[in-house]
């Protein structure tokens, strides 16, 4: 376990909330790496504008990720003088620099480690009770014996002893009462759990960064609840294995990222045409092509919404936070199963691989329920019956009297391949209708008003950008700028009526997203009537959108 992880866990024990992300260099193992933490007495699921405290154990290759570590004049850098000068790039914001001979301090402790020294120093500087840290260490080092624990505690304390010299680091208020039943979870784990809650019992997997943890969390846990996971030879196989499992009646899911999703689109089209439900959790990373596998970006929106050939209506969802990965994954399974349609959930690296302390999520009723067919004596079963709501009862192998052949060729209601215009139109209509007629309820978007409801200003966003937007809007509200937030959880199909209601009275709209081409803005333009004045704040990864930038974009108008 990394020092950063120990710190978050200790903070959690002390009753705080927190968030940890990691930034890794290109080296496969070793090389530069940074743990990026935020701790707070209130729930937090995204990063702040700047880091208050930076502890630099080593400056190697800092130029490769300095821009991911914004500091300001109030920041404090603790640096070991033996590592040489603080590089100019980190001094640009004129932070306060405090030299602490971390390595020397560690050397003076028997079995001392520089990471533990830094940990002790940070804990002391921010007011994190030593007990909480030692509790975690005890658990982490359980198997390593008493000596290891003692050495770590001694290192901690040696570090803490250096904290006196440090001023200006904000300390956290002690938590009144440690809230009960909180969880420590990443977005990828939450997606895995949401899948199980939604009823998924078959998973086919091909590893890819940054989605692998969804699959790795599911592997042992799925087995425990009687499900099956197959490691496939590639993504063509993983998605089609899922279609096979789902055809068999077992809710099925896979997880991937951009390059893998690209390989799945043909099969997703088969899912659409044959009306076989399946869920793909796509954890987005920098693109195009192999791009930047370890960094976050929201640039797979286009392929998720439009990437299937032919007229192929399907569902695209996006969680709005780490915790919401659970809800949205569960909801995605529910939608896929209810509507017999492939559903792509767009998570991203920033949510997927960050760990947060969250309140225990509620248990929800969204469990996938497929409309099943049973045989009726004398009435031949029509798998693709043209129904009013577009959903046709689906027989599952084992159901006597409903034997049918699922088909990716256009077909008659019975499923027989057909080139007839009428069959084509009827089936296209029903596949579209089942999605547009369905009542997605309030979950379609997260709505929130900051300040007064009487405002003509709104922000539309989605995915992991939602949390920094929320933070920005809270701040703006404090400054007297009221704003409505619409964070879409349902990216496709479009919900024009709900959107019209949500935008009622809005004259100025800011669209916030993390990609280069403003894909979300183009999607909104294509399917919604937007207010007269629309601005976009869009930027590709890897830099997170920070609350102050969003505040600034709002400010442009006001």
């Amino acid at each position: 376990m990394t020092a950063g992880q120990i710190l978050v866990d200790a903070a959690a024990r002390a009753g705080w909330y927190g968030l940890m992300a990691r930034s890794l260099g290109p080296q496969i193992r070793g090389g530069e790496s940074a743990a990026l933490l935020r701790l707070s007495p209130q729930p937090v699921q995204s990063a702040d504008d700047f880091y208050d405290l930076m502890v630099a154990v080593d400056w190697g290759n800092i130029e490769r990720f300095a821009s991911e570590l914004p500091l300001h004049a109030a920041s404090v850098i603790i640096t070991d003088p033996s590592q040489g000068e603080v590089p100019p790039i980190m001094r640009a914001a004129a932070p306060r620099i405090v030299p602490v001979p971390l390595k020397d301090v560690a050397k003076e402790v028997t079995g001392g480690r520089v990471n533990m020294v830094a940990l002790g120093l940070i804990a002391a500087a921010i007011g994190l009770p030593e007990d909480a840290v030692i509790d975690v260490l005890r658990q982490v080092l359980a198997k390593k014996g008493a000596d290891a624990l003692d050495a770590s505690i001694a290192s901690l304390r040696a570090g803490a002893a250096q904290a006196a010299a440090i001023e200006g680091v904000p300390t956290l208020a002690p938590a009144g009462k440690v809230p009960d039943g909180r969880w420590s979870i990443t977005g990828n784990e939450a997606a895995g759990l949401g899948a199980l809650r939604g009823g998924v019992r078959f998973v086919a997997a091909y590893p890819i960064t940054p989605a692998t943890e969804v699959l790795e969390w599911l592997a042992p846990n799925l087995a425990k609840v009687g499900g099956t996971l197959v490691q496939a030879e590639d993504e063509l196989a993983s998605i089609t294995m899922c279609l096979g499992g789902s055809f068999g009646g077992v809710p099925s899911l896979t997880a991937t990222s951009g390059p893998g999703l690209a390989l799945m689109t043909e099969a997703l089209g088969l899912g659409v045409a044959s009306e076989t439900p399946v869920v793909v959790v796509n954890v987005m990373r920098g693109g195009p092509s192999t791009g930047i596998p370890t960094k976050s970006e929201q640039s797979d929106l286009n392929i998720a919404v439009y990437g299937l050939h032919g007229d192929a209506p399907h569902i695209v969802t996006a969680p709005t936070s780490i915790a919401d990965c659970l809800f949205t994954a569960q909801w995605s399974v529910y939608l896929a199963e209810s509507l017999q349609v492939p559903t792509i959930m767009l998570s991203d690296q920033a949510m997927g691989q960050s760990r947060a302390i969250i309140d225990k999520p509620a248990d929800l009723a969204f469990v996938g329920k497929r409309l099943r067919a049973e045989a009726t004596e004398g009435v031949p079963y029509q798998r693709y019956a043209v129904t009013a709501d577009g959903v046709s009862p689906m027989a599952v192998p084992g159901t006597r009297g409903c034997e049918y052949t699922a088909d990716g060729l256009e077909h008659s209601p019975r499923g027989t391949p057909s080139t007839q215009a009428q069959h084509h139109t009827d089936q296209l209509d029903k596949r579209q209708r089942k999605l547009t007629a369905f009542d997605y309820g309030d979950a379609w978007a997260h709505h929130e008003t900051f300040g007064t409801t009487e405002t003509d200003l709104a922000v539309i966003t989605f995915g992991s950008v939602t949390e920094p937007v929320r933070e920005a809007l809270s701040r703006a509200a404090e400054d007297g700028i009221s704003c409505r937030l619409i964070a879409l959880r349902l990216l496709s199909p479009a919900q024009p009526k709900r959107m019209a209601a949500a935008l009622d009275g809005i004259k100025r709209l800011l669209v916030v997203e993390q990609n280069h081409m403003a894909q979300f803005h183009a999607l909104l333009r294509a399917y919604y009537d937007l207010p007269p004045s629309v601005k976009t704040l869009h930027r590709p990864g890897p830099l997170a959108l920070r609350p102050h930038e969003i505040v600034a974009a709002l400010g442009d108008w006001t």
Partner: protein
Amino acid sequence: MDAKPATPGTGSLKAQDYKSDLKPVWCPGCGDFAVLSAITKALAELQVPREDAAVVSGIGCSSRIPAYTSVYGFHSIHGRALPIATGLKAARPDLTVLCAGGDGDGFSIGGNHFIHACRRNVDLTYIVMDNEVYGMTKGQASPTTEPDWTGSKLTPEGPGVAPFQPLEIALSAGANFIARGFSGDPNFVVRLIVEAVRHPGFSLVQVLSPCVTFRPEQRAWKETTHADWAPENASTDRREAFLKLLDDDGFTTGVLYKGRNPVFAPPHPSSANLADLEKGFAL
């Protein structure tokens, strides 16, 4: 899922009961008619309840076969029949899963799934109707086409590439049951399919099935095939099977090999509920 055993029943289902009422789109004389018949006869011999069997296919003339049976079927996309069948069987081990298609579907676009299905050894039977051509797209060279076949406009001087050897590849890749039939000897094909289904793990049945339209010369297979791999003498030793293959002219029919590789494990019985798992996240 209820685990209904797919064991022989009372003998009440006839081959005809496994046929649907659809008229095949195939050309008159196409070898695939006999393969369809053989599949339905094999199902009758096995007495698999119709609702407990599924035939999965890709795209091609031969891949049209599922809808001509009266069991569950999935006529999917080009090249992906095997992973669909794999997912189905892994999720629903109670079903009898057949997978069927052509040489193009299985060995060209689907070649990767083929070798990995051989290795993975999920309990299913794969029937490849090999006509050494892409019938559906009007006659291009497939992986099993002879290098000097000049019948396609796409390769007017012949594909010039050594033919794919399905049985050799299957054996190298770890297939657990390997057989070859000829659609002109349909009863033997029935026997091969029955044995394949009964044999645990992944079974390959290559059926030489002439394309009378684009490879009319394949009618001569009647003369060239010879049933020299008697099922009862199938090799259980890979070395022996390899040696047989090295002497094979591509027209020997019968069962080449019956292995005893471990079959892909069925899902675990459920032992926990979600609340148990969620404890893992608690602080």
